[in-house]
């Protein structure tokens, strides 16, 4: 066989293996292989290489992906929502818009001097020129005086809705309602102290306030199903009284960082002015608002990867356990040593109880559940230079496994069942032994876990569960028994 022929054959071996050659070429290749040992060896190398390549593990996705996407997904700033298909805005006189901006600013400036928690009607106490106060229609003036609420922040828009209900289509959202961010900037530039944070929060950005209000509720209640448009129109927050002017009682101005609302913790208004751009300020505000309004335990496991990946014995104590531990520590200082030890143990037990309660709670709200009564078997042989059982336990926990339990195996049983594998690898029989690691593993993480076991930690995969269809419920957990043979 000529060198040229062999070189040509080499280039077609991949297609030959995959069946991508036309019949004539495939026949010619077959004939060549029959007479060429070198090319046959090359074909075998091709087979081994591709086989090894295909066994590269499919890694479980990092938990940070969803968190990162969430952090970057912010509600559109008001000026973006004004663009696009908001055709009703076209033609709105710039002067009227400017007028509204000024009036809103005046009212917001007033709001920060009041201690009342009610939403107030603009008092028309100008702190800086308001050229067109008289020209402001009622429905646009109304949103301009948010007070400092401790109730759930009321979007300014609801007042507008009271006067003229906001329809459920975003295209009819009142314009002025969306103009708070720049107004706040004017406040600052005018030397005014930061206005009440809830005011901008709830304001006017109807969608922002509505979105926020609606977002908070589902976090506690379960999956959200309403569309963004629905939230915009019906934020769910009670509308403030449309005509009950709140007397402005001057108080000390809000200090940056001071939080007025007890329910929704608005951010320091100064956070709104991190830079000259209302866009960045609004985004920062929204981002921090999301962080403040996001209680981790209440999120469904399907949404929060971190919940699914929490180790079996997550050390972070829950509220009740924290209180218990704190109480324990406080009392320990005045309690003799043996009693102190008992109190610490009691507090630790309380912490574990809280963990179990959380576990039950997650399951109760449709979180994790195991649908397999018999565990799936994964059998590995641990090479002498492999990791330790503790390493494997950590591997399981990192993959989101719960309730990892380790049981030692009878060496005689292990030797009897898997001696041929040990012989093949030249492992001494005398060192036979093993462990069962029982755990409940997220279904969606199982395949990646098995691949990682096969490719790392000096483990030889001997048995693995059959391929399964992708779980419909991403929170499903499977009972897995990882048998590690030594």
């Amino acid at each position, binding site marked *: 066989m000529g060198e040229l022929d062999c070189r040509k054959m080499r280039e077609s071996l991949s297609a030959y293996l995959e069946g991508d050659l036309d019949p004539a070429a495939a026949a010619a290749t077959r004939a060549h292989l029959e007479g060429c040992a070198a090319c046959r060896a090359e074909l075998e190398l091709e087979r081994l290489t591709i086989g090894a390549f295909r*066994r590269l593990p499919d890694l479980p*996705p990092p938990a940070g992906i969803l968190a990162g996407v969430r952090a970057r997904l912010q509600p559109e700033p008001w000026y973006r929502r004004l663009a696009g298909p908001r055709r009703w805005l076209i033609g709105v006189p710039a002067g009227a818009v400017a007028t509204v901006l000024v009036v809103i600013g005046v009212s917001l400036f007033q709001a920060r001097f009041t201690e009342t928690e009610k939403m107030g009607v603009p008092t028309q106490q100008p702190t800086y020129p308001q050229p067109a106060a008289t020209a402001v229609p009622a429905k646009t003036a109304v949103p301009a005086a948010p007070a400092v609420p401790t109730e759930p922040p009321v979007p300014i828009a609801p007042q507008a809705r009271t006067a003229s209900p906001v329809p459920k289509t975003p295209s009819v959202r009142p314009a002025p309602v969306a103009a708070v961010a720049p107004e706040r900037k004017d406040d600052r530039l005018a030397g005014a102290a930061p206005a009440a944070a809830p005011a901008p929060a709830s304001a006017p950005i109807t969608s922002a306030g509505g979105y926020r209000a609606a977002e908070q509720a589902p976090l506690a209640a379960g999956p959200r199903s309403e*569309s963004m448009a629905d939230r915009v129109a019906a934020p769910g927050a009670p509308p403030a009284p449309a005509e009950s002017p709140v007397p402005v009682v001057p108080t000390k101005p809000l200090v940056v960082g001071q939080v007025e609302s007890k329910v929704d913790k608005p951010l320091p208004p100064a956070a709104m002015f991190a830079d000259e751009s209302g866009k960045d300020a609004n985004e920062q505000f929204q981002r921090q608002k999301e962080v403040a309004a996001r209680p981790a335990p209440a999120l469904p496991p399907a949404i929060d990867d971190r919940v699914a990946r929490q180790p079996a014995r997550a050390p972070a104590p829950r509220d009740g356990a924290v209180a218990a531990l704190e109480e324990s520590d406080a009392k320990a200082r005045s309690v003799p040593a043996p009693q102190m030890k008992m109190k610490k143990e009691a507090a630790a037990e309380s912490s574990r109880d809280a963990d179990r309660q959380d576990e039950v709670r997650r399951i109760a709200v449709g979180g994790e559940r195991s649908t397999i009564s018999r565990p799936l078997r994964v059998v590995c042989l641990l090479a002498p230079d492999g990791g330790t059982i503790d390493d494997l336990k950590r591997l399981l926990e990192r993959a989101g496994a719960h309730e990892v339990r380790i049981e030692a195996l009878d060496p005689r049983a292990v030797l009897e069942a898997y001696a041929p594998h040990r012989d093949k690898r030249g492992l001494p029989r005398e060192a036979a032994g093993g462990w069962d690691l029982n755990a409940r593993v997220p279904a969606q993480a199982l395949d990646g876990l098995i691949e990682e076991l096969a490719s*790392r930690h000096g483990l030889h995969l001997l048995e693995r569960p059959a391929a399964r269809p992708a779980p419909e419920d991403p929170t499903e957990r499977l009972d897995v028994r990882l048998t590690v043979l030594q």
Partner: protein
Amino acid sequence: MTDPTDAVGRDPAAGIDPDGETVRRARAGDREAFEQLVLKHQRRAFNVAYRILGDYEEALDLTQEVFMQAHRSLAQFRGDAPFGSWLLAIAVNQCRNRLKHWKRRAHAKHESLSAPIGEDCPEPQRDLPDPGTTALEALEGRQLEELMREELKHLDEEYRTVLVLRELQGVAYEEIARVLQVPVGTVKSRLHRGRTELRERVRLRLTPRSGAEGRPGHG
């Protein structure tokens, strides 16, 4: 390799997008619907990025960018192809752009991305049993994965992409062709040339050479 029954976007002939309803809700502004799409497709997007870029952190960052791009472009998604395919195309394009960016900046880890093989090394003797096969058989687990991962990084970007999509993600030829916007024949050609090159690199890595140091193509 991923579970072959994870058939998101793998049956373009089916004509039914399993994510159709979720995509519709996401386009209407339902953030939770979009997050469901993220949860469903993040694994594939991340693994594609990781294998093409060869860097875990870069792949994490790029995967987030992929979903952000998808979110921004959701209004332009016509539904001609399954959402998974569309997202895959975004991921591949983002990877391509990132690699180009690295090339321009002479990213140290990727300087030899397209280094040809065998330039400095003689052809292996053909009258002896191929040592590469024996050496490859002797490798297991971590070493084998390391070898494959390293050699994949040195393949030409076009070959690498097709190899990752076809061999690791099990994507059909037709879908790859749609993602890359090239004919199916081109996909097959790149696949087989990529496999051939991978095989050659593996052999050269494993074949003992007197006085030879380092991998082919490296400076």
